[in-house]
């Protein structure tokens, strides 16, 4: 426990407030956690500052102790609870949960949707968040949605087609399902493939099968490793030739 005492006395000497005791990592003896209650001064800056915490962490590292500070800002937690209550009250039909991540004086609001929300509702949520955060001296950095939809995007299309080309629509659909994506309908898939073809990202062969264009191959690039897409492609070809 000598090291714990050293940590506490160093923190005390440096004027860093500590809550509770030094918690040693049960899996790694040189690593420990210290809870630091942080507050805001009149200018809204964090006390103790990240700079002073960083410096003390360096001092402790020189003494052979790797300390992780866990900052607890009761004020931030209250703000998060406030934003959550405000948004869930106003958009209870659309939102399942709301949480906040605060850095310096700006905040990122994360919302978990119950159903897909349109741009106007998203804008209204951002506006309401901005008003609330302004009242507590913060600005809204961004409003982010956690993701529920699971449709393949353009890159996913190109990756899949590169691997299994030449591939017809049925094989592409199966490849997506294997990769854990949803495919709403054949018509949806057809329209997506058509758009990619018009953008010259893929080519439709006379057989009705699709391959990626030379430009796409260049854009996607490759890696020299066991998980190289070229290796996957070779394996997929070998499987086809069986």
């Amino acid at each position, binding site marked *: 426990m000598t090291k714990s005492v050293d940590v506490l006395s160093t923190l005390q000497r440096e004027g860093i407030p500590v*809550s*509770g*005791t030094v*918690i*040693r*990592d*049960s*899996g*790694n003896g040189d*690593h420990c*956690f210290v*809870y630091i*209650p942080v507050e805001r001064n009149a200018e809204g800056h964090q006390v103790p500052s990240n700079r002073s915490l960083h410096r003390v962490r360096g001092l402790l590292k020189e003494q052979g102790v790797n300390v*992780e500070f*866990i900052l*607890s800002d*009761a004020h931030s*937690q209250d703000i998060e609870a406030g934003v959550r209550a405000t948004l869930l009250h106003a958009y209870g039909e659309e939102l399942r*949960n709301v*949480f906040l*991540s605060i850095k310096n004086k700006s905040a*990122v609001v*994360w919302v*978990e949707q119950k159903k897909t929300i349109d741009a106007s509702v998203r804008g209204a949520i951002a506006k309401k968040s901005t008003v609330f955060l302004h009242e507590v001296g913060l600005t809204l950095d961004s409003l*982010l*949605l*956690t*993701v*529920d*939809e*699971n449709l*393949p*995007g*353009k*890159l*996913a299309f*190109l*990756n899949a087609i590169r*691997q299994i080309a030449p591939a017809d629509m049925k094989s592409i659909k199966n490849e997506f399902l294997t*990769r*854990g*994506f949803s495919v709403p309908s054949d018509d949806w898939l057809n329209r997506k493939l058509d758009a990619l073809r018009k953008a010259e*990202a893929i080519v439709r062969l006379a057989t009705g099968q699709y391959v990626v264009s030379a430009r*796409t191959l260049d*854009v*996607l*690039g490759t890696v020299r490793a066991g*998980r190289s*897409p070229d290796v*996957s492609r070779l394996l997929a070809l070998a499987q086809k030739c069986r």
Partner: protein
Amino acid sequence: MEIVAHHLQGVASTRSDLIERDLFGRSAFNRYYYATYLDVKEVLGSLKAEWGKISHGGVPDMLTGPVKKALVKGRERAQRASDFETADLCSRAVNAIHILAEMMTDGYATRVAADYYPEVKIDFEDAYNFKLNLVRVKDAAEWPIKARGLLRTINAAWRQVHD
């Protein structure tokens, strides 16, 4: 496991015996952490089998190391392919990684305190939102819920960029 944590939280809040409520309270923190850890471990294992064997203390570094690196690379590829939706999703996932890593560090430290530091007593000043060190039980109850939302975002981005 969350349901067990919730039950323990309820028991701790209403027990009159000081020793017993402390025991139930610290077990509630432990279970909330484990519920979160198991979800994270499962998703990491689905991204790459060997990542599913990650130890508790290694989770934050794993997230901010190889998982983030892969998604940053994926974002660059998506941008090169003019897939800006996927690039935006990767940015959200990277943001999610940082929040999740920080939360897992807090959770792990709280669980170690709950399990191995009986001398750090639970503060029951607010019996329905008691605290261990500075962590309130209602915040701990949010860990699994938040983690699932963040993991969904990370998983969705991974699936889009993974070859």
